[in-house]
């Protein structure tokens, strides 16, 4: 049973075809990652799925009553708007401060609730964004390059957090990512996008596909090696949820 599904999805803006003929589906508890070069339409695809972009062709089918938690690439919070972390969390529509504290503890920002969003570090900021999306207990978490601007340890701990959250909430995750080796480690299903779906399937399948190697070149060697390395050491974790992939 798919939570969300795109059929023959196409997006055209300003006379330019950004996406064409995209078919994809995200099932319960699945982690689906979209990879692709810059300008390949990754963000557009997410925007079409969450309803921020009207598709010019095809359809997006959502399960009735689907709760989508969206973590955008960036927020226009700057010095102009005062916004504490607690107030930001309240924008989720859930004003209960007990729940705020609980979710803040879960993502590791419980000491920062009274701080201004603009004063947070990159990692803390991403966690605050994630916390807001989690408050409504989503069935599907949509993340657009959630680790942009984070260093390597920051990325690793953020992805660990997402995996933990998924176990906790039992939700599916759909994300765009540039971090190929992390993708290879933690995804059930990878979609390689370049205006259209070049190839998709399990991480191993995709990384062996000639289309994928043509797009990412020798970089895939490193990613694949890392994937296998991680796979050896974290066998149980890597296998989890993999049964309904592909």
């Amino acid at each position: 049973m798919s939570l969300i599904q795109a059929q023959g999805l196409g997006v055209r803006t300003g006379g330019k075809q950004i996406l064409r003929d995209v078919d994809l589906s995200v099932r319960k508890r699945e982690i689906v990652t979209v990879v692709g070069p810059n300008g390949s339409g990754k963000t557009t695809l997410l925007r079409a799925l969450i309803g921020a972009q009207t598709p010019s062709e095809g359809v997006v089918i959502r399960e009735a009553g689907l709760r989508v938690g969206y973590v955008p690439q960036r927020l226009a919070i700057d010095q102009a708007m005062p916004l504490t972390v607690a107030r930001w969390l309240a924008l989720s529509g859930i004003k209960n401060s007990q729940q705020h504290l609980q979710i803040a503890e879960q993502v590791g920002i419980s000491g920062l609730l009274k701080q201004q969003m603009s004063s947070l570090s990159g990692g803390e900021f991403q966690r605050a964004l994630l916390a807001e999306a989690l408050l409504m207990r989503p069935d599907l978490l949509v993340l657009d390059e959630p680790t942009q601007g984070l260093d390597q340890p920051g990325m690793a701990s953020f992805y660990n957090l997402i995996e933990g959250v998924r176990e906790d909430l039992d939700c599916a995750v759909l994300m765009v990512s540039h971090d190929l080796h992390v993708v290879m480690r933690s995804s059930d299903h990878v979609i390689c996008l370049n205006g259209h779906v070049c190839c998709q399937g399990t991480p191993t399948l995709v990384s062996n596909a000639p289309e994928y190697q043509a797009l990412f070149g020798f970089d895939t060697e490193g990613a694949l090696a890392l994937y296998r390395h991680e796979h050896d050491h974290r066998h149980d974790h890597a296998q989890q949820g993999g049964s309904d992939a592909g």
Partner: protein
Amino acid sequence: MIIVMIMRSRAEVMLDDFLWRAALAGVAVALASGPLGCFVVWRRMAYFGDATAHAAILGVALSLGFSISVFIGVLLAALAMAFLILSLSGRMFAIDTLLGVVSHGALALGLVAVTFIPGVRVDLAAYLFGDILAVGRLDLLIIGAGCLAILVVLWFRWERLLLFTLNADLAAARGVDTRRENMILTIMLAVLVAVAIKILGALLITAMLIIPAAAARPISRTPELMAGIAVAAGVAAVAAGLSGSFYWDMPTGPSIVTAATLLFVVASLFTLSRTKVLR
């Protein structure tokens, strides 16, 4: 019942006084421009507000030419300008260039058009800088209604507008129609321009949107606090400006804006001194 009647009779007496009418009109505009101005600051719409306000002069010319209410004429001109900018933005020119052209173009065209209206000698200064002391009873009613409408809309759409301001996609993911929110914000801005032109004039309306909000920013922790402090700053500026105008015969609109600017300077200095102490 009796209390209501007493209050009404007092209100009647008050409204006969031009200074009270001016004060009430000024407070009404400050109440609406405080929170609306916050959105102008957050969304970086200062120049957009300027262009909409400058179009008001064109609206004045239109209303005098066609003998319609100045409020209606200005509202239509401001709306037309706002939607012209919305539809043109992102094409051909950078947005600040586009705003520079249409904003000054509309102002100049309005000034030229006014001189061609036969038989009417228009006090242009009143429309450029405002003439709050000339606010009549009907004016006060229209100003009050316009500002109340803005406040009601803001109250009910506050969370949606905040979300939309922070991230349009996030708002869309929650089912907010972002184009509609943008349009509503634009219409509110046009309404404020239409009701505030008598008080502040086309050149100073944006000041009343931006300066109180900017003064509130450094001493606020949440968006709501910023809107509240902006309202307080606006009301204080109106009171100070009116007093200055009454006692020293200063032009009212510029006095109000001067007072608001002083508040901004004080708030900024206060914050600067505190951050220095903390370091």
